[in-house]
C-alpha cells in the first residue's frame, strides 16, 4: 500500500535509523502519523499484548525440553494466581506455588541438585517459548560437573517463584528463566535471575539478573556464558546478588572519553 508521495511528507533523517531502533523519521501527514506507520505500530502493540496474555504452551515446551541432552523430564506446576487478571493485580500470588504444585514437587523426589532450573511465563509467554530451548542448549554445553534439577515449568510465575521451588528442592542455587515485560520493539525478551541458596522471602538484592536475552538482544551463547560465570563465582563466595559482581560483562566507561555524535561541532579546520 504505497502512500501517495504528495500526501505524505517523508523525513530525510530517516537514514539515521542505522544508529537506533527508535521510531525516528516516521514522516507525517499534516502533523499526524501516516497510515503505514500507524498500522506498523498497531502490529507491534498487538504482539506485545499477545506476549502478555497468550498462555504459555507448556505441552509444546515440555516436549521440546525432552529433546535436550542432559535434562530430565520436565515438571509442569502453577502458582497461587488463579488467572492472568489475578496475576496482574496481585503480584505476590505469582511468587509461591499452589498447594497441589507443592505436593507434586515434594513427591517428585530426587537428590537436592546443585542448580534448580525454573522456567516461568512471567510477562511474556512469547519470550519463554522462543528463547528457552536455544538458551538451555548453549547453557548445558557450558556447564561441567553441575547437577541439575528436573526443569520446572511454572505458569503465572514471578521472579521470586524460583526461591520457593529452590527451597523445596533443597537446591544450592536456582536459575529462573522468565518472560520480561514486553516492549513494543522487544516483545520476546527473556530474563535470567540467579540466586544462591534460594529461600522464600529473599530480597531482590540477593539476585543477579541477565536481561534482554533474545535473538535481537543478548545472544543465547553470551547469556549462557554469563549464567555459568555467575554460578561459578557464587560457589566461590557462597552468595549472590550485590556481593557478586558480574565482571564477565564489564564495560568500561571513561568520563574523559568525550561523547562525539554526528550532531557535535565539526572538527576544527575541516569545515565541509
Amino acid at each position, binding site marked *: 500500500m504505497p502512500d501517495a508521495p504528495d500526501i505524505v*511528507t517523508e*523525513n*530525510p*533523517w530517516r*537514514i*539515521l*535509523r*542505522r*544508529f*537506533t*531502533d*527508535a*521510531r*525516528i*523519521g*516516521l514522516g*507525517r501527514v*499534516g*502533523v*499526524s*502519523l501516516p497510515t503505514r*506507520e500507524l498500522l506498523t*505500530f498497531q502490529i*507491534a*502493540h498487538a504482539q*506485545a*499484548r499477545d*506476549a*502478555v496474555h497468550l498462555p504459555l504452551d507448556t505441552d509444546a515446551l515440555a516436549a521440546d525440553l525432552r529433546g535436550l541432552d542432559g535434562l530430565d523430564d520436565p515438571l509442569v506446576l502453577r502458582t497461587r494466581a488463579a488467572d492472568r487478571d489475578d496475576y*496482574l*493485580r*496481585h*503480584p505476590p500470588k505469582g511468587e509461591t506455588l499452589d498447594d497441589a504444585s507443592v505436593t507434586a514437587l515434594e513427591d517428585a523426589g530426587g537428590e537436592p541438585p546443585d542448580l534448580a532450573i525454573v522456567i516461568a511465563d512471567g*510477562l511474556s509467554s512469547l519470550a519463554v517459548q522462543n528463547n528457552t530451548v536455544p538458551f538451555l542448549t548453549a547453557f548445558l554445553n557450558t556447564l561441567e560437573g553441575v547437577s541439575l534439577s528436573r526443569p520446572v515449568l511454572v505458569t503465572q510465575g514471578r521472579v521470586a517463584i524460583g526461591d520457593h521451588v529452590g527451597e523445596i528442592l533443597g537446591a544450592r542455587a536456582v536459575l529462573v528463566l522468565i518472560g*520480561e*515485560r*514486553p*516492549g*513494543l*520493539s*522487544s*516483545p520476546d*525478551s527473556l530474563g535470567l535471575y540467579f540466586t544462591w541458596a534460594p529461600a522464600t522471602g529473599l530480597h531482590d538484592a540477593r539476585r543477579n539478573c541477565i536481561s*534482554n536475552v533474545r535473538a535481537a538482544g543478548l545472544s543465547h551463547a553470551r547469556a549462557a556464558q554469563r549464567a555459568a560465570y555467575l554460578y561459578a563465582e557464587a560457589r566461590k563466595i557462597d552468595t549472590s546478588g550485590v556481593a557478586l559482581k558480574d565482571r564477565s560483562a564489564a*564495560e568500561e*566507561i*571513561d*568520563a574523559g*572519553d*568525550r*561523547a*562525539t*555524535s*554526528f*550532531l*557535535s*561541532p*565539526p572538527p576544527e579546520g575541516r569545515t*565541509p
Partner: protein
Amino acid sequence: MSGRYRYTLGDRTYRFADLAEAMAKATPERSGDRLAGVAAGTAEERAVAQSVLADLPLKAFREDLLIPYEADEVTRLIVDTHDADAFAPVSHLTVGDFRDWLLSDRATPEVLAALRPGLMPEMVAAVAKIMRNQDLILVTRKCRVTTAFRATLGLEGRLSTRIQPNHPTDDVNGIAASILDGLMYGAGDAVIGINPATDNVAQAIRLTHLMAEIIDQYDIPTQSCVLTHVTNTLECIEAGAPVDLVFQSVGGTEATNTSFGFGLQDLAEARDAALSLNRGTVGDNVMYFETGQGSSLSAGAHHGLDQQTCEARAYAVARHFKPLLVNTVVGFIGPEYLFDGKEIARAGLEDHFCGKLMGLPMGCDVCYTNHAEADQNDMDTLMTLLGVAGVTFIMGIPGADDIMLNYQTTSFHDALYLRRALGLRPAPEFDDWLARMAILDSDGGFLLSDGVPDGFAQSLKRLPQDA
C-alpha cells in the same frame, strides 16, 4: 474525634477508624489501593467515605497528621513550612466547601496563587477525591505556574515537551538521532532529558557533555538533564560537567525517599551546587522531579495511606526546591497500581490538579505499559484532557515507543496534535528559535516546514555513507 468518621445511611452506620481510613476509602477506585488493602470494600462505602471527608474541616489536617511529625521528615517539612496567613481565606471551610470555593468565581488565578503556601498536600488530596474529572480540569486551568531556565515554561496558552532520546546502550549517535527527530518536529523546550541505560557518574558526565554540545552548537533555548541519582549529579557537578538540571525521583514519605537513597538534605545540597554553576539565562529553576502514584506502596513505605495521598505529599517535597519541572509518570508503574486506561486517566488528572494547586510546574508522562489494560486511544484521551487543563509539559519520544524503558509515552506527533487541536504554542524563547530555524510556524497554524534547516542539514551531510 471519632464521631467525625461516622456516617449513617438508612439503617446502616459506617465507621472509619481514622482520617487515613476515610481518605483511602474515599479514593476513586484503583488497583494499588486494593493491593494495599486500604480501598473501600463496596461502592456504597466509597461514596459514604466521600461524604464523611466532605464534612471534615480543612483545619483537621493541621491537627491530625497522617504520619507523625517525629517519624517522618516529609511531615516535618509540611508542618514547618505551612503558612497560616496564606491559609486564612479558606481556614473556616470543610473539604466539601473547599471544592465549592475552588470552583467559584471567587477563586481567581491571583487568589489561588496567594493560597499556595497555606495548602497542605493532604488538604489538596482530600478535595481531589470528591471532585469529578471536569472539576479537576476547570480548577487546574486557573492555576498558573511559571518557571524558567533557558526557556520560560507554563505561560498561558503554551505547552512544552521533553525530548526523551533514550537508547538501550546509550549509543551517542542513537541518542543524537532521536534528539534531531524531536527538534525537527518542534519538540524539546521543557528539557532534553536522557534516562541512561548504564547508570553511573562517568556515563552521566559523558551524556551531559553530549547534550550541552548540541544545545551550544545550535543555540537552542532549552536545558538538558541526565535522569540519574541526585548524588551522581552532585558528583558530575564537582567533576566540572556542564549540568543544567538536577534530577531525582521523589516520594511522599521519608521511608520512600530512603528507599530511593536520598534525604531532603541531599536535594538541598545538589540544588545549591547547580545554582552555583549559574547556567540559566532567563531563570534559575534547576530541579527536575519525577513522581507517580504507587511508589510508596512499592517501597513498602506508605504507612497505610492510599497512593493518591502519598503522591500529593511528594509534591510538598518538590515544592520546597523550586523545580523547573515536575513530571508524574502516571502509567509506568504497572497495572497492580493503576489497572487500566480509566484509572490511569483519573490519576493523571488528580496529580496534575494537586501539583498545580500547590504551585508546581506539572507535566505528565502520559503513558502505559504493555501489561496494563490501555492503548493509544486511552493516551489520546488523557493527553487531550490534560491539554485542556493546561498541562505544563508532556514527553516526546519517536513514535511513542521508548526502546530502553519498554513502555509507550507521547510522541512528537502527539504534541503537534495538541498544538493544532487546542492552539498551544511552545515556550516563547523556543517558539522564536523554531521560527528562526524555519522548523515550525506557530502563527500559520502550526505548520512544519518540509526541509531540514541548514545547520542540521550540514550535520547529516557529514555522516559517513556506510558507517
